[in-house]
């Protein structure tokens, strides 16, 4: 091998070694610098939990950036000239290899040049690239390792609001308060119980809505709307329990006239429909053992009971009627069948009523959850409006006035901050959380008796409430078949032909219960009355 080849091959080895060392050093340094970002983000996450999407985007960008940096550094190659310069510096060869390389690339017929190449080749043979450029672990490697450890440790910090990114956990987009979670859990449990009876999938639907809310796919108002839809579906096919109970009582009273049906009637009076069904079945079994007089009493009793038309009891009444007719025709077989069918109807009715009760309870919980979500949404909107208002107030000449309290101050929980400021808190102080403050300089200032007073509750601007009511009314009547004008006009002219029992209520049983509760303090009643009288449209003369 010539001196030139010796030098070139040796320099190639050196170049590879230098590149490997440089890559290791640069990558650890790059990793150290790059790791500061996720580490800082994780620390931030401990105080202000980040959503999964945010983390995914940030970590994705981070990984792509680091990969780009890695590839960029990997493609960076040293030249042999640079390697020669490095060797000269490291081994103190006073530019011997660099000069030799130049003469290799720029050959010259000279004894002196040959001598120089010979000396350079001799020097390269005496030098070991491994010893000249030993592999060393840079300090940044330890720093990077420590940072990785800290990052991993931070993910396992046992804090309730800490999310382990390594197991692909992140803060939900919208976190429910404890109260909301309890309501949700109860509603789902109740619905699952109800679903066993009616085989609907509303519980899964609710869980899906909450999951979407937590993932940020929908916001609180959308979730509230969807929960409202679920409530509507829950209300579809609702039984009028009051009417059914009344009907059952009437049937029970009628059945008490016969000794044979008295046990059944007693069970029905006690709302034990399963027991009543059993009694009916026993009655059907022993029908052949009865005396003709007893059967006649039974037939009368059943006939009487079947003449109590009630919505929801049609099938039961029909079976009772068929049983009565069969007895009248002395057709015991059909009578037994009809009584068995009536017993089945009672069982079915019992199940339906149980399911209805569960659904009512679930609907109440959903109502609470929906209201809570709406409240939070309104509060967050109020807060953003307040911030905008403060920004406007902070214009020149307006500074210093923004500090007045009671003008819809925020104080509402941020998404992802558990346990703070639950909506619907009874201890809310007027003037805080976006509520109008008593004693503000707006409003007419009527006290409960309708007189103006210093500390009396104030009326707001009537137009705002009017508009709001109108909007709510229109929204509530959409897609319900009859136009609101028609219904209202028919009611006004007192020519409505609809059976009031067949008018489908827009209110859920829970809402009805709420409406029946008298929560308006008596002091406020004159005020409310005056208010609605004030906003009443003028009567056309």
């Amino acid at each position, binding site marked *: 091998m010539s001196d030139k080849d010796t030098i070139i091959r040796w320099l190639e080895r050196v170049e590879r070694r230098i590149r490997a060392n440089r890559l290791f050093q640069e990558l650890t340094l790059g990793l150290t610098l790059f790791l500061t970002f996720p580490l800082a983000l994780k620390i931030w996450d401990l105080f202000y939990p980040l959503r999964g999407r945010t983390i995914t985007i940030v970590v994705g960008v981070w990984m792509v950036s680091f990969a780009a940096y890695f590839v960029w550094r990997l493609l960076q190659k040293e030249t042999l000239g640079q390697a020669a310069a490095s060797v000269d510096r490291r081994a103190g060869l006073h530019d011997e290899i660099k000069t030799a390389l130049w003469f290799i690339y720029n050959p*010259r017929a000279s004894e002196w040049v040959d*001598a120089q190449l010979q000396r350079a080749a001799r020097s390269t043979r005496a030098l070991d690239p491994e010893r000249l450029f030993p592999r060393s672990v840079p300090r940044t490697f330890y720093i990077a390792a420590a940072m990785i450890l800290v990052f991993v440790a931070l993910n396992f910090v046992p804090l309730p609001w800490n999310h382990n990114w390594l197991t692909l956990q992140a803060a939900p987009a919208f976190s429910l308060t404890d109260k909301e979670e309890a309501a949700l859990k109860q509603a789902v449990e109740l619905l699952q119980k109800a679903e066993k009876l009616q085989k609907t999938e509303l519980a899964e639907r609710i869980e899906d809505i909450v999951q979407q809310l937590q993932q940020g796919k929908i916001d609180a108002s959308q979730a509230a709307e969807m929960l409202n839809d679920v409530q509507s579906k829950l209300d579809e096919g609702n039984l009028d329990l009051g009417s059914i109970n009344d009907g059952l009582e009437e049937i029970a009273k009628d059945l008490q006239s016969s000794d044979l049906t008295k046990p059944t009637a007693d069970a029905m009076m006690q709302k034990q429909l399963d027991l009543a069904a059993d009694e009916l079945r026993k009655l059907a079994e022993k029908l052949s053992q009865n005396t003709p007089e007893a059967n006649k009493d039974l037939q009368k009793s059943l006939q009487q009971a079947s003449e109590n038309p009630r919505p929801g009891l049609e099938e039961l009444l029909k079976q009772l009627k068929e049983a009565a007719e069969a007895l009248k025709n002395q057709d015991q077989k059909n009578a037994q069948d009809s009584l068995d069918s009536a017993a089945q109807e009672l069982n079915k009715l019992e199940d339906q009523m149980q399911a209805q009760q569960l659904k009512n309870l679930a609907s109440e919980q959903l109502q609470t959850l929906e209201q809570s979500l709406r409240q939070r949404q309104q509060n967050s909107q109020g807060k953003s409006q307040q911030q905008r208002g403060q920004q406007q107030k902070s214009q020149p000449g307006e500074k210093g006035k923004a500090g007045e309290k009671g003008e819809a101050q925020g104080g509402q929980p941020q998404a992802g901050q558990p346990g703070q400021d639950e909506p619907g808190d009874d201890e809310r102080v007027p003037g805080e959380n976006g509520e109008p403050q008593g004693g503000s300089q707006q409003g007419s200032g009527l006290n409960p008796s309708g007189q103006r007073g210093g500390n009396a509750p104030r009326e707001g601007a009537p137009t705002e409430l009017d508009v709001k009511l109108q909007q709510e009314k229109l929204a509530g009547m959409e897609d319900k078949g009859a136009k609101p004008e028609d219904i209202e006009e028919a009611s006004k002219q007192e020519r409505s032909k609809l059976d009031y029992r067949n008018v489908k209520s827009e209110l859920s049983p829970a809402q009805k219960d709420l409406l029946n509760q008298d929560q308006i303090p008596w002091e406020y009643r004159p005020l409310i009355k005056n208010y609605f009288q004030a906003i009443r449209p003028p009567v056309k003369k």
Partner: protein
Amino acid sequence: MSTAIDQQVETFQEQFKRVRDEVGKVIVGYGEIIDGVIMSLLASGHVLLEGVPGLGKTKLVSTLSDVMRLKFSRIQFTPDLMPADITGTNVVQEDALGEKFLEFQPGPIFSNILLADEVNRATPKTQSALLEAMEERSVTVGKRTHKLDSPFFVLATQNPLEMEGTYPLPEAQLDRFFVKLKVDYPTIDSMHTIMNRTTKIKEPEVNRVLGQGEVLEMRKTVRAVPIARPVQDYAIRITLATHPQPPYAQPLTMKYVRYGSSPRGAQALVIGGKIRALLNNRVHVSCEDIRAVAFGALRHRILLNFEGEAERVDTDTVIKGILENTAEPS
């Protein structure tokens, strides 16, 4: 083949060492100055020695001439010194028949080693008489040009303190000096040695160790040393950096320098680097060699501007800045 080169290098180092050692018998503590003077001789250059009186500048030159078997002349420059006193002149002679004719009488410049003592005391007219001789190695008197013997080596001295009645050397003449060496005051140990050697009955004697042919051979050896383009490029970039004009100008040169070095400066860097490489048993020039000779080769080629003069900036400071800011080729 390379053995012959190695032998040549070895001989060069040996001869250089012999001269240095012989001069060192008389001159104490000026190793770098001695090296610089010998290097200039081997580089076919001339040396300007600057130092206060009594530091042994003249003694150094006379000792060097004693060590080498070369013809030595000494001219004490004074304000009334005329060019003809240096170069020589045509004088009227009579032959045997009484016919008169002009005959050239060579001046002291016709020697191998010329000591121009206190060169800045002569008038510019007289100083310029040295110009042709230093560069062309020839003297023209009347219509006839007389070649100087080789090697021709001028060692000029000047005193930086007594500036009254002196004529600073013109830039053109300064540029012709290969190096300018600053002779500083000797250290106390060196002073002791000087006292011991010069205050006794018998002063040290030197031997003639180098002849004319050997000097010329050494000069050829120096020129044969190869230099790689990147290293030469480094020398050129340093030279160009002494100029206040872009693109190579550096902040210090732009601020304090009026004129930078001529290409002779780069030549001095390369040749000085070659000699230093040989002395370090190398057959190639390194950037370190260039840097080592940069101060002597460039300090008299840089002319400071008014700001530099006013702030008493030393050209060595400028060169140091240039060397620090000029990157080595990678």
